[in-house]
């Protein structure tokens, strides 16, 4: 019962924050609503017993990426942009296309809803270790190579963004 209530509360946070993110005129307001939405997603992680990802979501997204966004918003002068037209000319086509995709997704979810109960019938066997320990075990044994590749990706991204943002190399 409490789970149900919390799920709907977080769902309202996520979807309301998302809608307000894409409709606000000022980019700072958008960023604040995006933070609300990301915190809602973090709450959903906690409901799904992914405690490590809950911490990662808050520290990395809300603490890292959003600060990066706010820095750039302050760096780039957005006053002019806030006074102009906010939506581009093909918005109606975009809405129709997204509505079509949404109808397809809703149809598949409606028809496939019964298929997901198969997975839920199995009893919980995985909580004999902590969540963080299990994630780390998997990350450093089975996914060691992708983990190292991700570090190279981050290195390339760091070098690339510095080169891009610097005036004279």
């Amino acid at each position, binding site marked *: 019962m409490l789970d149900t209530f919390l*799920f709907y509360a977080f769902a309202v946070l996520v979807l309301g924050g998302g809608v307000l993110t894409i409709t606000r005129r000022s980019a700072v307001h958008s960023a604040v609503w995006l933070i609300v939405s990301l915190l809602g997603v973090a709450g959903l992680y906690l409901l799904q017993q992914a405690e490590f990802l809950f911490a990662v979501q808050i520290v990395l997204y809300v603490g890292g990426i959003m600060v990066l966004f706010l820095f750039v918003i302050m760096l780039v002068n957005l006053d002019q942009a806030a006074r102009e037209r906010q939506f581009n000319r093909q918005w109606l086509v975009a809405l129709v296309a997204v509505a079509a995709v949404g109808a397809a997704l809703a149809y598949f979810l409606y028809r496939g809803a019964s298929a997901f109960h198969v997975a*839920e019938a199995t009893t919980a066997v995985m909580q004999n270790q902590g969540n963080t320990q299990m994630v780390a075990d998997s990350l450093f044994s*089975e996914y060691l190579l992708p983990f190292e590749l991700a570090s190279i990706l981050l290195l390339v991204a760091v070098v690339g963004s510095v080169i891009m943002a610097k005036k004279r190399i």
Partner: protein
Amino acid sequence: MHPVGTVHYLALSAALLLIGTVGVLTRRNIVIILMSIELILNAVNINLIAFSHALHNINGQVFAIFVITDAVAEAAVGLGILIALFRNKETVQADEIDLLKW
């Protein structure tokens, strides 16, 4: 009231994906387009975590970590490009950037 199952999470994730797609397709401000991409990646993560929970399999959570890594790299490079663009063109509107259009 139905108990919350995997399908509820999938429906929420689909809705968030659609909101992010609308943002990418309709907004002119590049900063908000990048934020919409973050929304889309979060929708993917909700999906992965929901299946990880339902199937009692940790791999979904590990994959979500990789998705978050990609989101960080994408945001850093995207915002770097945005700063370079603003220095050269004095605009952040996506439809005014038409250097490659004939």
